[in-house]
């Protein structure tokens, strides 16, 4: 009897020992795998960062060179040497650019124009998109197709007729002429509509039965739900409006009305020699659009894509 007990204990301890050894081995294998995985992760990550940095450098090359040139005295630019970085960095170009042209006025103009266009587009596009996605009326689809069709007409193709209209209204060289033709956009309507279509129609019907007016529905329910679309739209529109060149060039004539993009062009004609001066101006005026992009990039990306995929 006792013998069997002994053998039993022996076997159990043997089993225990074996188990312990096995679990150690398993733990070791796990550890090894973990380390391996970690190494692989680090390797992948560093490769990715390297590739991205290279790409970024190539893409940013002109911009970086422009910044570098902005700090160069103009003498340094016109030599036979390969001057990539300024040897004697200076702020003279910036100071000169501010003195030679009323840059502050241009910046204010640009802000005013781009800001009002942005607000106008958000209001008009969201309301238009609301009607295209929630209201029922005859010819809705046809109307929407027409709006979409305007996206296919390049801006340059209609610029002359727009110019004639604006000049006929006596809006040349005014803020009205700069802003009003751009108060809505098919792209914006499309963006908002895609966004709104992802909401269940029952939300609107429920609000209607609750006694909510259309405008109240847009303000109280739709807009809080579409913050990311509005953010995306705002960033996109503001940058586009800020960078407008052709239209302001056509419709403005005086320094009072010029936007920055045209103003910088003036630096070129006033003193054709001073490329570094002009570049300093350019560097100054791209700051707002870059900073807006940096602030709004998350919104922009989220907004641009969340409309595309439902859910």
């Amino acid at each position: 009897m006792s013998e069997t007990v002994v053998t039993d204990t022996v076997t159990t301890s043997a089993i225990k020992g074996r188990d312990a050894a096995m679990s150690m081995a398993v733990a070791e294998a796990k550890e090894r795998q973990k380390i391996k995985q970690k190494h692989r992760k680090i390797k992948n990550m560093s490769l990715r960062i390297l590739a991205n940095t290279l790409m970024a450098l190539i893409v940013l090359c002109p911009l970086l060179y422009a910044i570098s040139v902005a700090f160069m005295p103009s003498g340094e630019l016109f030599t036979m040497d390969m001057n990539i970085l300024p040897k004697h960095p200076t702020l003279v170009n910036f100071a000169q650019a501010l003195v030679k042209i009323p840059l502050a006025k241009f910046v204010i103009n640009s802000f005013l124009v781009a800001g009002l266009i942005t607000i106008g587009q958000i209001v008009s596009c969201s309301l238009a998109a609301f009607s295209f996605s929630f209201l029922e009326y005859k010819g809705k689809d046809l109307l929407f197709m027409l709006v979409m069709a305007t996206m296919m007409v390049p801006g340059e193709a209609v610029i002359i007729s727009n110019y004639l209209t604006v000049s006929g209204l006596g809006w040349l060289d005014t803020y009205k002429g700069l802003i009003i033709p751009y108060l809505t956009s098919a792209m914006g309507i499309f963006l908002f509509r895609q966004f709104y279509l992802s909401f269940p129609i029952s939300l609107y019907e429920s609000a209607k039965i609750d006694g909510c007016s259309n405008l109240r529905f847009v303000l109280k329910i739709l807009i809080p739900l579409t913050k990311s679309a509005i953010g995306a739209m705002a960033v996109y529109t503001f940058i586009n409006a800020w960078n407008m060149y052709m239209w302001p060039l056509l419709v403005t004539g005086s320094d009072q009305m010029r936007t920055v993009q045209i103003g910088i062009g003036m630096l070129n004609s006033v003193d054709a020699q001073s490329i570094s001066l002009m570049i300093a101006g350019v560097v100054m005026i791209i700051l707002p659009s870059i900073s807006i992009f940096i602030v709004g990039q998350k919104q922009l990306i989220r907004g641009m894509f969340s409309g595309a995929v439902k859910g």
Partner: protein
Amino acid sequence: MAEVVLKNVYKTYGENVNVVKDFNLEVKEKEFIVFVGPSGCGKSTTLRMIAGLEEISDGELYLQDEFANFLEPKERNLAFVFQSYALYPTMSVYENIAFSLRVRKVNKDEVDKRVREVAEMLGLTAVLPNRPKDLSGGQKQRVAIGNAIIRNPKLLLMDEPLSNLDAKLRTQMRVELAKIHEKLQNTIIYVTHDQIEAMTLGTRIVVMKDGIIQQVDSPKKLYQNPINRFVASFIGSPSMNFMDGRIQINGDHMYFDVLTKSRFDEKSKFLLPNKVKRALEDRFIRGNEAILGIRPEKFSYKQKSENDQYIDVWVHARELLGSDIYAYFEFQGKQMIASVPADTEVEVDSHVRLYIDLTDACVFDKETEENYMYIDSREEKRA
């Protein structure tokens, strides 16, 4: 006073697509009306027409005796509960429930009082500050109901409010809905495709098919006295069994000859009880062909009375449901179900003699599928 009256209402899409045809219904105060039917039968469309969410193509709608075809939804003094809940995601539960009062500019204290009352009634007090996304399906549905009943509307419309819930929750909410109706005493029109919901909730049920009302009656009457084969098969779970055959008169007796293996078999000839016989006697039956309808619970393994008829079948599957067992067998190439008490020994893959109680059987016309046994309660009253 009638709460809702629909007179010859049609809904037409495009040229000739009739979704709802000649819909006539009078809903009285405090009734719980259920529209039931398979999907696409126009029940939701009718409800949406009453709510003003769909235009009425033809016919008249009266709400509280007022012509209402062209009233805006908000002017109709009704509330609507959607299948998808339709909660406002950016608002808290409190704001969701309060929304319709706020739109109507009710003063703040009154709103607060009412919201708390409703939340208390629906068991939502604890989640009032939460957003809808943090709620479970059942809670969301309750918020939707809260949003609907806070205005204490005279008419409450519900479009499949329970179909997004799981089975257990659905049963629970069904009981709660019945309680709410009892408490608020308002008129409810309820749409569902689930006949159990219809049977348990409705004071009257409207059975629809292809946009046409088939029968309007109380749940009990619908079950016992269906107007046609569609209603008979739709109401009741499991569904009624149908056998093809021929009516035969032999002396004083009337028989139902069951069609088996595409010939009339002497063995499967049912003697029809007197009640059925009387109903069929003065009827003209084309070629004497008819369909016999038997509820699953009218089958049994044991002979209960001398009048019981029987068939021999091959049971190929069984389902135990606690109190009952469903025995599945094939007959005339169709699957049929017998519902027998759970203490019956049902063996799968075996030959069984099933006894049939034909006292309450239905007999349908082969072509029009109308029930010869149907008694029009209006005619009954007149008589």
